């Protein structure tokens, strides 16, 4: 990949930070509430408006993951644009509301960036979860956080799902990712986890400001990302390599069940409470390195030119 010329990308004019997509994942709930306080609203500098909101207020109020159905699976095109019905689950109604507010998904009116805040009971440290391994904005934000928070274990997880099939809240924005931090029991707030999330969000805001102010000298950066294959231990050993034949489960009578796969893979989301119902004890991933090009914000002229060519393409 040639690195001489930075990739030009449009200004990130509108961004959203969402908490409480799962109502019992409390770091995001408390962080958004805190950020919404009048004394904490501040200008970042640079033309970025920041929306902060609680995605699932009913679930937050009940301190439960969801009321009728998992909100974070409701953002497929099919669900968002399906027929409206009186008896629809609350979360489907809410997903459509959020799509009106932050989207519509896939359109030019969608917000530029969504950061969706989550917690996990798994020992995963801080993870970015995204559908794309070539969304340079998300990758640069990740790299920025890695540099600013060197003591926080940090990984980038690439869920290999096409945009057509993407189902989570962050897929509404032109750029988006989930910031997932664990371990934290659901319904609990741990100060070290909250602090990590607060700092992560602040560094993200700083980066967006800096990017929008252009020119921005980003260097080509290398990072390790994870592609996942869903499957079906080593308790707390998220992101350790699981080799064929190594212990995976222990039966109630004390026998060990070994990993039977052919390939050594990295385990994560180990023992996430909410995944019991989905039949997932852990997920497995391959580790890759990706080259990320330099990026810089488009000039006004470049932005106008690209808008004109966009309009003439009549994309869906």
């Amino acid at each position, binding site marked *: 990949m040639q690195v001489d010329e930075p990739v030009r990308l449009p200004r990130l004019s509108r961004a959203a930070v969402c908490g409480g997509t799962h109502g019992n994942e409390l770091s995001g709930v408390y962080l958004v509430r805190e950020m919404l306080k009048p004394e904490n609203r501040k200008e970042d500098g640079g033309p970025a408006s920041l929306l902060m909101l609680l995605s699932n207020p009913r679930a937050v109020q009940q301190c439960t993951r969801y009321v009728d159905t998992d909100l974070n699976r409701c953002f497929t095109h099919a669900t968002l644009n399906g027929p409206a019905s009186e008896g629809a689950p609350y979360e489907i109604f809410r997903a459509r509301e959020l799509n009106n507010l932050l989207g519509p998904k896939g359109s030019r009116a969608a917000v530029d960036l969504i950061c969706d805040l989550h917690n996990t009971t798994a020992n995963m440290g801080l993870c970015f979860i995204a559908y794309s391994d070539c969304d340079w904005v998300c990758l640069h934000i990740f790299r920025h956080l890695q540099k600013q928070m060197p003591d926080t274990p940090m990984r980038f997880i690439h869920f290999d799902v096409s945009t057509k099939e993407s189902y989570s809240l962050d897929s509404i924005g032109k750029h988006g990712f989930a910031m997932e931090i664990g371990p934290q*029991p*659901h319904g*609990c707030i*741990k100060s070290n986890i909250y602090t990590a999330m607060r700092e992560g969000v602040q560094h993200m805001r700083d980066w967006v400001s800096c990017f929008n102010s252009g020119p921005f000298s980003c260097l080509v950066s290398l990072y390790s990302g994870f592609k996942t294959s869903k499957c079906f231990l080593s*308790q707390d050993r998220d992101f350790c390599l699981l080799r064929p034949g190594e212990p995976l489960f222990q039966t109630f009578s004390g026998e060990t069940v070994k990993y039977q796969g052919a390939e050594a893979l990295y385990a994560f989301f180990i*023992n996430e*409470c*909410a995944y*019991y119902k989905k039949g997932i004890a852990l997920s497995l991933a391959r580790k890759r390195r990706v080259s990320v090009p330099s990026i810089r914000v488009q000039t006004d002229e470049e932005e106008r030119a690209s808008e004109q060519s966009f309009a003439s393409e009549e994309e869906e």
Partner: protein
Amino acid sequence: MSNGSSSNNNNNNTARFDAARRVAIFGGTHGNEMSGVTLVNLWMQNSAEIQRKGLEIKPFITNPKAVEKCVRYVDTDLNRAFTQENLSATGGDELPYEVQRAQEINRMFGPKGSAEAYDVIFDLHNTTSNMGCTLILESSKDAFNLQMMNYIKKAFAPASCLVLLNEHPLLKYSTSRSVAKHPVGMEVGPQPQGVLRSNIFEAMRVILKHALDFISLFNEGMEFPPCTVEVFRVLERMDYPRDANGNIIAMVHPNLQDCDWEPLNPGDPMFQTFDGKTIHYQGSSTVYPTFINEAAYYEKQQAFVTTRRETLAASAIRKA
């Protein structure tokens, strides 16, 4: 107590208790505390592991609806529901689910306070707090229970098993196990709600094994000499700092998080506000906090409880 006599003041006397013939093991009193749910389900299918000669041991899921939904409770906390008022309430199906359940459990394993009640009930719980293995006592005067605690602690050593005593007139509550003559709470953490952790599961299993061994030995006629038991006695409940609207404005301080049973001295950091300021403990003496950051207690206005260390003396005991 309705069986035997005991005298804690005079350790020269051996307290006599009837043999403990009927024992119950409760799981799922809170439907999302998975160790107890899993153990009881396992033993209901295959009770070989918990069989003891001369003992009737009944594993039992106390709150099946909550277990099915994997929630703490459906209408109201079952482990607070065994008040006299609830147990004698009329209203049948109109009553909250857990009150109906409490009445049913009282019929099956009680009646509470009567001679027909079960001898011992073990009630299995998990906590998100870093409490390790904890046995919970409701009375400082039950020599049978104190001797059991002593036995379990020694058998489990060098691993730690601590004893929490909640005899506080205001903070004490009417538990499902209180139906029995000798109620024993077993609390193991840290474990998130709805999650099963193998180390937590195994620890609970081992402690129960020791408890049943004790009852077996007692029933066979073994005399247990006088002993002392170190306990942590509940003093007071500390809530999170809240604003005028009742919203929490601070979290358990990182220095206190996971430090159950360690001394909290006056002036030590206790809470941390969302913008990073420290709130210090203002009490007049050192206390030992526990149930630190239990998820289920946010709604009960409790960030942790304070305790003080005490040594209780138990008289010798022997089967009557």
